[in-house]
């Protein structure tokens, strides 16, 4: 296939392989020794975000080749199609316009009116709840809000709420999250809360997600046991967020309590929509708008910056280089800030559900590898867990180190600030030390220090460091949008559709069949021996002895 700029992709892949062969025997420590200005050459800034690629096993020439790969795959054209609202999610015939959710009110967008309308509705709900004027059915003030959702309707809002703990609005109510279908979270939570003062947000784009509807059913029964069967119980204690007005109507949620999103927002890209209601309840509408503004700034950057200065594109191309050229198939996300506790889980959904694909847009098997296995943990804690494998294992892993430069300067920390700032410095020191040790290995140690084999560090493990000025709504918005666009740019290189998720559909369907067997209906004969055996075990345990 020939690209618009002339250099065929196959040729670029070939050039990249040759470049890898040329760099193969140069240890990262050597690269730094050869090039004293490596940091300034290989780091970039976009708004509140600094991207340091200098500990990646590449050089400026590699970046140029990767940029021509982006051209060969027509990344520019695809970005234009994304921002034009074309139905680039072709298997579902939908656009992917999560970016339109963050276009500021004074700038036109194809869906501006509906987006602003929902933001206004959200503002009214948030203001009423914050003013302590949202009433339960007995007239009590709502003090606790429980978000019931799963996947994109859970991970995003939960991750952001936790991340922005220091930006909490002084009028904020307590927010809780319930997702797991087995009921373990909801049962624990309902023991702590009072029905009279609890409001549930049922968050499901389709409003058919079985996990969510079961949890919502449990919540409804809990409320009705305490407060009676009156339909006003649902009217006072439930808000629905979905793209289906009809389904919310059927469930009994009054129109005034419905917030809408649309087909053109993917679940894992939806925290910017009304799905983000719990975020707004925590940090206020102004905080929520700052989050959107940070993401919008990154949208503009992504849409306009040349490839070699484009932070999301560079994140994408570095990943492609590591996965497809260097053959590294594992990627760890390591925030050095406990507030970003849920970021690894959020990013593993964002990246793996988007790019865990093996068929191209043309319906052919992909010729290259796609998304690596991605996982992670708060860095300092992971140091006591899986870092052993990073430093001395046989499986190479690339890492994203993420940290804020400044922390604990907010007013609420005044009393303990000195000690806490000390702790933050300690975390930063560990962050920088770990990426240094991974890159340099023993070269990071004093010369003359000869170590026995089992204590050695081979180094040469590539990592990226993302340094935020500070963790606030604006910078978090920018960081998350950068990852979203990284995912999109990689999908373009890999020629796949990042916006569908057919791989998660079939399992839901056959679970329905299995459920009826577990409940003693249907013929087990249709199942494989393993499933039959397992079902048999469960049923035998249910029988009274």
């Amino acid at each position, binding site marked *: 296939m020939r690209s618009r700029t002339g250099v065929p992709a196959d040729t670029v892949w070939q050039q990249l392989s040759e470049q890898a062969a040329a760099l193969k025997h140069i240890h990262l420590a050597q690269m730094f020794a050869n090039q004293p200005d490596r940091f300034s050459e290989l780091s970039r800034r976009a708004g509140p975000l600094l991207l340091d690629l200098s500990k990646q096993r590449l050089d400026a020439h590699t970046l140029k080749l990767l940029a021509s790969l982006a051209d060969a795959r027509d990344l520019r054209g695809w970005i234009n199609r994304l921002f034009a609202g074309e139905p680039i999610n072709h298997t579902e015939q939908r656009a992917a316009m999560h970016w339109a959710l963050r276009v500021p009110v004074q700038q036109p967008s194809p869906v501006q009116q509906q987006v602003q309308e929902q933001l206004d509705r959200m503002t009214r709900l948030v203001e009423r709840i914050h*003013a302590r004027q949202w*009433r339960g059915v007995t007239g009590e*003030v709502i003090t606790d809000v429980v978000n019931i959702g799963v996947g994109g309707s859970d991970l995003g809002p939960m991750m952001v709420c936790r991340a922005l703990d220091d930006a909490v609005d002084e009028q904020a109510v307590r927010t809780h999250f319930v997702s797991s279908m087995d009921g373990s979270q909801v049962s624990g939570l309902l023991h702590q809360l009072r029905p009279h003062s609890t409001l549930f947000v049922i968050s499901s784009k389709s409003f058919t997600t079985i996990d969510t509807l079961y949890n919502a059913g449990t919540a409804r029964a809990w409320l009705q046991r305490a407060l009676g069967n009156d339909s006003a119980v649902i009217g006072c204690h439930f808000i629905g967020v979905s793209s289906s007005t009809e389904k919310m109507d059927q469930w009994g949620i009054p129109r005034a309590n419905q917030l809408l999103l649309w087909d053109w927002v993917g679940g894992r890209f939806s925290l910017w929509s009304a799905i983000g209601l719990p975020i707004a309840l925590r940090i206020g509408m102004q905080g929520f708008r700052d989050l959107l503004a940070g993401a919008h700034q990154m949208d503009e950057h992504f849409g306009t910056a040349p490839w070699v200065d484009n932070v999301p594109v560079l994140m994408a191309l570095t990943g492609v280089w590591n996965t497809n050229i260097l053959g590294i198939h594992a990627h760890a996300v390591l925030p050095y800030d406990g507030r970003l506790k849920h970021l690894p889980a959020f990013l593993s959904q964002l990246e793996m559900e988007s790019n865990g694909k093996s068929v191209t847009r043309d319906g052919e098997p992909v010729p290259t590898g796609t998304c690596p296995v991605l996982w992670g943990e708060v860095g300092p804690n992971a140091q006591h867990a899986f870092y052993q494998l990073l430093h001395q294992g046989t499986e190479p892993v690339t890492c994203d180190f993420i940290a804020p430069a400044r922390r604990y300067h907010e007013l609420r920390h005044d009393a303990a600030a000195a000690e806490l700032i000390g702790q933050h410095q300690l975390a930063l020191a560990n962050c920088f030390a770990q990426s240094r040790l991974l890159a340099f290995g023993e070269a990071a140690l004093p010369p003359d220090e000869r170590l026995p084999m089992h204590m050695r560090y081979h180094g040469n493990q590539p990592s990226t460091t993302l340094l935020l000025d500070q963790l606030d709504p604006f910078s978090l918005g920018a960081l998350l949008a950068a990852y979203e666009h990284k995912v999109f740019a990689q999908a373009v290189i890999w020629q796949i559709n990042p916006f569908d998720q057919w791989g998660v559909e079939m399992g839901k369907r056959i679970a329905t069949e299995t459920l009826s067997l577990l409940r003693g209906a249907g013929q087990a004969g249709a199942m494989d021996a393993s499933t039959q055996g397992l079902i048999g075990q469960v049923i035998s345990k249910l029988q009274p002895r």
Partner: protein
Amino acid sequence: MHLDIYGDTLTALVTAAALSSTGHQVTLRVPAGQVADDLDAHRMPYQEPGLEAMLDEQQRAGRLLTGSAEQMPDDRVEAVFLALSPAAQPFAESLIDQLAARREHSWLVVNQSNFPVGTTESLQQRLRDGAEPGVDRAVIVMPEMLQEGAALQSFMRPSSILVGCDSDWAEIHIREMLRPFNRLRDVMRLLRPREAEFTKLAINGMLATRLGFMNDMASLADALHVDIEQVRMGMGADPRIGEAYLYPGCGFGGLNFSRNVMSLANTLESSGVGSELLEQVLLINERQKEVLFRKLWQHYRTDLHGKTVTIWGAAFKPGTGRIDNAPALKLLEALWAQGVIVRVHDPKALPTLRAHYGERMDLVLCDDPYEAARGADALMLVTEWKDYWSPDYPRLHNLMAEPLLLDGRNILDPEFVRSSGFIYYGIGRQ
């Protein structure tokens, strides 16, 4: 004696009136602000029975003068009273420093302000700094125990007088000044200054706790279909408990009462101890202020939009025009948030209410209680003004759109109200 009183609180005015009425030569020095403006314009900033008349009388008799708070007492003055607002602590300190600088003058300072526990001792330290040897100086504390609505009475016929004092010289003088109010039997109790300050806070904490407890009981009574009034009288008959402060109601307000309880909560919190009980008491009280709203909300099955509700009584208690922390404020805001138009009557507090909220479409202030009830879907009795104890039920019934009566003070007879054709809700009784 020549006495100077600094302050713009109700205590300042009451002390000035009471002490001048017994023959002292008093100068009242009110710091610049709303209260001073009111007095200049011959408006009474505090509505208290008998207070205005007594102040006028003493001024006419020449025993009560007013002066600037920026000026120092003249040399004849033997005692200085500080009845300042809690925010005026820096003013008190600078005043004390200026008194202290007159090295040969003997000073007795009586602190009646609600400052944090320990303030009186530190003021005394300042006052004694630099005094000539042999010059008597003391700062003592006499916590104000005024019952708002009966303020003058409670100063002049006190059931007890708390004085925090650690100087014999000061004791002789304070006894002399208060002698006319302490005749029947000696009700003056002397403590260390910080003990007196703390006692004042603890008394208010206890009273608030009793009310909080009764309101909690009233909620239970509601749920169990028990009449809390019967329970209250049964409890009050037990001498270990007594009858005072057992009335359940729709929450207590008042500048001093609420502020004192909160000040105790703060005192404990900043000392690292923290009072979970008092926090709960305040929380229950805030919740209680909305109890009538909750009953109305349930009565109309969570839909109040477009309704009209009448509130009788906006002052935080009868006899005063003040609305500080009054339950009516929380009710107004809750009702407005649901799109309700509120018509309010109060014998004294309407001007304050208007100043507080300004003009709004959904607030109608009525000089006549029956006019306020016109077209209403509910009538909430919030402050137990005497005017409301015996309403003209047939007239109300004719005026109101729905005969619904919510009695926030349990002053009406549920049976009689119902027999007059109304639906009745009380606090802990139906």
